Structure formats: structure tokens, C-alpha cells
């Protein structure tokens, strides 16, 4: 399967692109060039249309650990970046997008609560916490049209809360598992800590 990973110039996107495995043919792109990652303006639809040509599925990881010079640029990257990625994936005929988000959206619930994806995200009112929310809302609403499946994987801090191997396993499943019904679904990926299933 041809997979394009968007946001592979950032640490998580790079790790996902590198670790997906031999059953996937991965193209890694990002806003800036990096080792194994081609520079594409991921905020521009024309550039992304060309980059996603032939992609069977797309991984949008650019909102997970984004950096920008200002809060405003950060929000724009998340919202516009997700919008451009999702609409370009639809246009390219990609069947599925995996959107990488953060468990931080739920961190302010009391620790005694058994949190699962049916809990409403409660980010704080700052740009960094709003970034994954904006990306998720964009993915969910575009998925609602029924033209593409979008799986949202919420990850914790890589290493301490979500092991990279577990993130990769969840990503492989999200890219390949058969689905029917809703076009948007959310999964939590935690190896340990309060969001892990055995916690």
C-alpha cells in the first residue's frame, strides 16, 4: 500500500514514516526538508495535490508536535494543514486518512475517571492545546461527508506514555483494518499511565 506521511519533518512523523515496515511503500513529506523527508508546502492545495497523487492512504502527523514562530501560525498550520490534507486526500481518491492527535485533549479530567474516546475533549484555552482539537474537528467534519474514512489516533507523550512500537502497531491497524458504518472514528493509544486500558 502506498502511504504518504505528512509532517515527516517533525520527530513523530519521521519515526512513523521510518517504522511502518516493508508492507508499506512510504512517501515522507513535510513543510521543510529533512533526512528521508521531501519538502512540500503542506498548506498549499496545489502542492499537496501533486504530492498525494497515487497515495492509497495518508497519515497526517503534522499537528502532533508542530512548531511555529507564533501562536497564530501554529493554529493556522493545524487548521489549514488538516483541511488541505483532508480535501487533497479526497481529491486524490485516497481511501483513508489517519490523523495523529494527542491524548492531552483529555488530560484535565480527574485521574480517577476511566477515559475513553467517548469523552468530550477539554483542551485549555491556549494555542498549543487547541492545535489537536482543530485538526480533529476538521477531520471529523470532512469525514462526515462520507467521501473518505478518517481514523484519529490519540497518542500520549512518545516514550513515556505511548511507546513508539505501540503507536506504529496502532497506525498499521488503522491503515489496514476493514471498517463499515461511520467514516470517523477515534482510538486512544497509551502503553502505560492513566489512558492505558489496563490502568
Amino acid at each position, binding site marked *: 500500500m502506498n502511504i504518504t506521511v505528512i509532517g515527516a519533518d517533525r520527530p513523530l512523523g519521521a519515526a512513523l514514516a521510518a517504522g511502518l515496515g516493508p508492507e508499506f511503500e512510504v512517501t515522507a513529506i513535510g513543510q521543510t526538508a529533512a533526512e528521508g523527508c521531501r519538502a512540500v508546502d503542506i498548506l498549499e492545495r496545489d502542492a499537496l495535490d501533486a504530492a498525494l497523487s497515487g497515495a492509497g492512504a495518508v497519515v497526517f502527523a503534522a499537528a502532533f508536535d508542530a512548531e511555529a514562530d507564533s501562536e*497564530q501560525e501554529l*493554529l493556522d498550520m493545524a487548521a489549514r494543514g488538516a*483541511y488541505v490534507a483532508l480535501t487533497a486526500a*479526497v481529491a486524490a481518491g485516497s481511501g483513508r486518512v489517519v490523523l495523529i492527535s494527542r491524548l492531552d485533549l483529555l488530560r484535565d479530567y480527574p485521574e480517577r475517571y476511566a477515559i475513553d474516546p467517548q469523552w468530550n475533549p477539554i483542551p485549555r*484555552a491556549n494555542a498549543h492545546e487547541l492545535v489537536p482539537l482543530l485538526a480533529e474537528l476538521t477531520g471529523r467534519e470532512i469525514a462526515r*461527508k462520507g467521501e473518505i474514512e478518517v481514523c484519529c489516533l490519540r497518542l500520549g507523550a512518545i516514550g513515556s506514555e505511548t511507546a513508539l512500537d505501540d503507536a506504529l502497531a496502532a497506525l498499521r491497524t488503522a491503515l489496514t483494518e476493514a471498517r463499515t458504518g461511520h467514516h470517523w472514528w477515534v482510538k486512544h493509544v497509551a502503553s502505560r499511565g492513566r489512558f492505558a486500558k489496563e490502568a
Partner: protein
Amino acid sequence: MATVKGGKVVLFGAGGPVGAAAIESLKDHYTLRVTDLRPMEEVAAAPPQNERAPIPAVLGAPHENRVVDITDYEQVRAACEGMDAAINVSVVRPHPVLAFHVNTVGAYNVAKACVECGIKRLIHTGPFHTSLGFNADYWNDFQVDDNIPLHPGDDLYALTKYLGGHITRVFAEREGLEVLTFVYTSFRPSAVLPEERGRGLHPFTTSWEDTGEAMRYGLQAPEMPSPYETFFICARLPHDKYRPDKAKQLLGWEARDTFAALYTRP
């Protein structure tokens, strides 16, 4: 208490017809800081958005007119200083970049500046796209009320304003800012022309004149049941498709213009 019965109010994006109606309804009750990307004199001298849309009046003292780029946080914050309330009627519809900058990031700038400046009530605005061509857009539903979650799909204008609305919701729920989001679909003038009689109308319609009055009721309303409330700002029409009941219950506002001449045969 977030009720604002007098004092100073800043308007963002006031150069459009909803801003014009708000200025008209508020200017005798509040001291206004009227802002837009363009100088208000230039806005007032330009042709209206469409043939019968209102053009904003250029107010003199004690009101103030100021050029503010809503995408520039420092300008937005400076415009909020000393204000008691804020109204955001800014919008960019078709531009693939500016729609995000104005409708989404601009909403962030306004909400953040309101919190930093101690403003307690923000009236935010946005569209309800009633027909987007997919099955989850509510177009085939009836008795739809104010509290439904909007489904913007991939429509650029609808989605960018939707994201801006969620940003203001987060500020409301987290920072003690009371946000009233006014939702609109179809605008028209109050006056019905003879040739329009009996021709029908969109089931979610508001006169521009009524949009202005709704702003005044929104500022003066008592504290809301929750910090973020969404209101359909439209006429109660016999189609019974969209129900603006919450505006009547919580704001005491209902549309004066109900357009019977449009939906009854002459």
C-alpha cells in the same frame, strides 16, 4: 455579571451589513469602537455588499473608528483595552488562506484579547449553512433548534467559522469569558417590495435591521445558563424548520420582521 447595559463596546469587522446594522442599533446606547480592516470612511463610500444591504454610518465622537487587522493579535488586543464588551462580525468567505486567518485565527485573537483585557461578554457570529449537499447537513430536518452541533463538511467558509466558534467555546468554558454566538443564514431588508410578495423566502431568514437589535439584546441580557450559548438569529417562520426560541428565552429578543408578505399569496 456579564450583562453590559452601557459603557464601551468594540466591534470587529464592522464594515459589512451586519456591522452596519449593529452600529445603528447600538450607537445611542453605548460608546462604540468601530473597527474594520479598511477605514470606515472608505467602507462607507464604497458600494454596498448587495443592492439593498445597509452601509455602515461613520460615527463621530464620542465613538471611535479604528483600522484593525483581526489577524494581528497586538492590534486586536489594543482595540479591546478599556472595553466592556466585544462583538466580532468579521468574516472572509472564499479565500483559501485568509478564511483561516480571519475566521479561525481571528476568533482566537479576539477571545484571547477579551480575556486579557477583562472583557466579560463577547458576541461571536457565524453562519449556519443549511444546505451543503450531504446527508448530515440538517437540510431535510424540521424543528431544528439552536443547540444542534453544526456540520460544516468541507465548505471553506462554514468550516473556518465553525473552528473559530469552537475556539471561543473553549475560552468561554476555560477562562470565564461569556460567549454568545449568533448564527445566521439568509439576510434581506425589512421592506418587502411589491414584486416580492408571495414569492417565498429561505426558511432561515433575518432582516438586517433585526440583526442589529439582536446585538443590543445580547449585550443587555442577564447572565447565561452556561458560558457558551449559541442562538439562531432569525425570524420564527411557519415552516417550523428552524426554531429561534432560545433567543427569546434568554435574550428577550425575537425578530420583528416575520415576512408574512413573502410567504402568503398576494
